[in-house]
């Protein structure tokens, strides 16, 4: 699969403070890639470097065939990208169509393409009937939808969205997510900055967790599996020391006890759970339930970010 973004050791420092350090990752064509991280983790700085809005202090990144540090290449990169910034940044006194036509022309798209895309995406986002209204009269969710259309008006190869659903009501956030999923079906490459873990899990093919440095990168499922392992939860009546010792004898590592609940991390629960259950029973424990719990992306994220 060919890549559309290749970042190598990207670093950005502001007045001696490091915003992003040694960031290396690839994004494949047609992929939805999520960059997760707490506030101030460097997500927006990364996006700005990739969009050639700010230059890296060191390291390189290629978008398509062009280097972000090359002045001539930067114009071509910007033409390839549709950006949804964290602030919508629309001209409030102008109508939706005037806003979109202006940006379409700034992206150097033919007028025919601009008009077709405006109609297509405004209809998709249920804003077609509001097209002649001034943006200033819109709700936050409607403005965000217009910002999404603005990013698509020139048919970009790559869509970069910075917190596209932040501060939106659930309905508007759902619409934006559905649009992203529709674009994914169209084989668009999308890079998504978010701290909405549920959203990332549902939409993204791969996820990178950033906290100045890249802490992990993989598919959501692999991250959950490899970073956190699988756990078996056994609820036992009146846990005592001999029961715990019997379990430790069978499976010496990673046992958490909380009230009558035992959480045991194991690589292969299908193989290990029966023998542990036997040990508990042999030690006189009465088992109320046995279940397997899988770590969520939230568990992985919090573990990595706190470390």
């Amino acid at each position, binding site marked *: 699969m060919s890549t559309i973004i290749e970042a190598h050791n990207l670093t950005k420092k502001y007045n001696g403070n490091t915003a992003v350090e040694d960031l290396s990752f690839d994004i494949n064509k047609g992929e939805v890639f999520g960059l997760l991280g707490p506030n101030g983790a460097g997500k927006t700085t990364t996006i700005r470097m990739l969009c050639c809005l*700010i230059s890296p202090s060191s390291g390189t990144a290629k978008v398509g065939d062009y280097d972000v540090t090359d002045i001539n290449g930067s114009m071509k990169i910007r033409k390839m990208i549709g950006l949804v*910034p964290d602030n919508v940044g629309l001209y*409030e006194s102008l109508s939706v169509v*005037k806003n979109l036509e202006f940006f379409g022309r700034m992206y150097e798209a033919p007028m025919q393409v601009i008009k077709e895309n405006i109609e297509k995406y405004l209809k998709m986002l249920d804003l077609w009937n509001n097209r002649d209204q001034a943006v200033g009269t819109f709700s936050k969710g409607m403005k965000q939808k217009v910002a999404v259309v603005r990013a698509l008006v020139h048919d970009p190869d790559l869509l970069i969205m910075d917190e596209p659903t932040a501060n939106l009501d659930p309905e508007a956030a759902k619409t934006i997510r559905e649009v992203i999923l529709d674009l994914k079906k169209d084989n668009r490459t999308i890079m998504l900055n978010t701290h909405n873990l549920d959203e990332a899990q549902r939409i993204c093919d791969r996820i990178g967790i950033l906290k100045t440095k890249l802490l992990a990168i993989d598919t959501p499922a692999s991250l959950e599996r490899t970073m956190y392992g699988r756990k078996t939860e056994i609820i036992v009546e009146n846990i005592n020391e001999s029961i715990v010792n019997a379990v430790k004898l069978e499976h010496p590592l990673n046992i958490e006890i909380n009230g009558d609940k035992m959480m045991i991390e194991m690589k292969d629960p299908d193989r290990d759970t029966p023998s542990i259950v036997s040990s508990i029973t042999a030690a006189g424990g009465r088992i109320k339930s046995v279940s397997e719990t899988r770590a969520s992306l939230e568990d992985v994220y919090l573990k990595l970010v706190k470390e």
Partner: protein
Amino acid sequence: MRLWKSWIVAKKDLAVLKRRKTLMASIIAAPVLLGTALPVLVSYVAVRKSAPPSFVAELLASFSFFFIIISALLPLYISSYGIVGEKVERSLEPLLATPTSDGEILVGKYISSFLPMILSIYFGLALFMILADVMTSHVLGYAFYPNWNIGIILFIGVPLAIMYGTSFGIFISAKVNNVQTAYQIGAASLIPFYILYIMGEANLVSLTTNTNLLIISLGIFIAVLIVYYLSKATFNRERILTEWK
């Protein structure tokens, strides 16, 4: 430099400006007011006070300097709004994300400030000349306008003063977050013009000779170059996104 891109920016700014009724009114009203009030005042002095023709001619020539002052003052409002408005609406980031150079955006801002201003000032000056001729020709015995003096003001002084006001507005807008502060600081940048006018009235310097007007124009030109350089240095995408608050 692709001027067509600058023109798209300018057209958008002009469309936004059209919807700012108060701003539009002040841009149109000030030159019209000046173009009407000054000839009336000169006519009053000439007729009621029986001033000699030479004094009337001197008065008309010195009053025309006002048009240079408002040419530097009024663009401050448009160019300050052009940048501070983008800051307030947070529209600079998506604008800078388009394949457009900083210079192309900056030139677009210049055009959108220069065009309405030059039209408005020229309209006011035309009104001033026509009314002045109608109201004073019987006292002077001839039509005072057009003359070389007003030609220098019209074609050199006014365009340069508009460029000065525009550059200063852009430069100062980078430093402040609201239009009012930009206006206040911008208005202070006109102090040299006021001093010149007062010196003219105090007969310390003549604002009515062609040579002096050309020297003043040269001074404005140098000031334009300096402020343009400063505004270009300020209007840098990385600084806009990381330092402009």
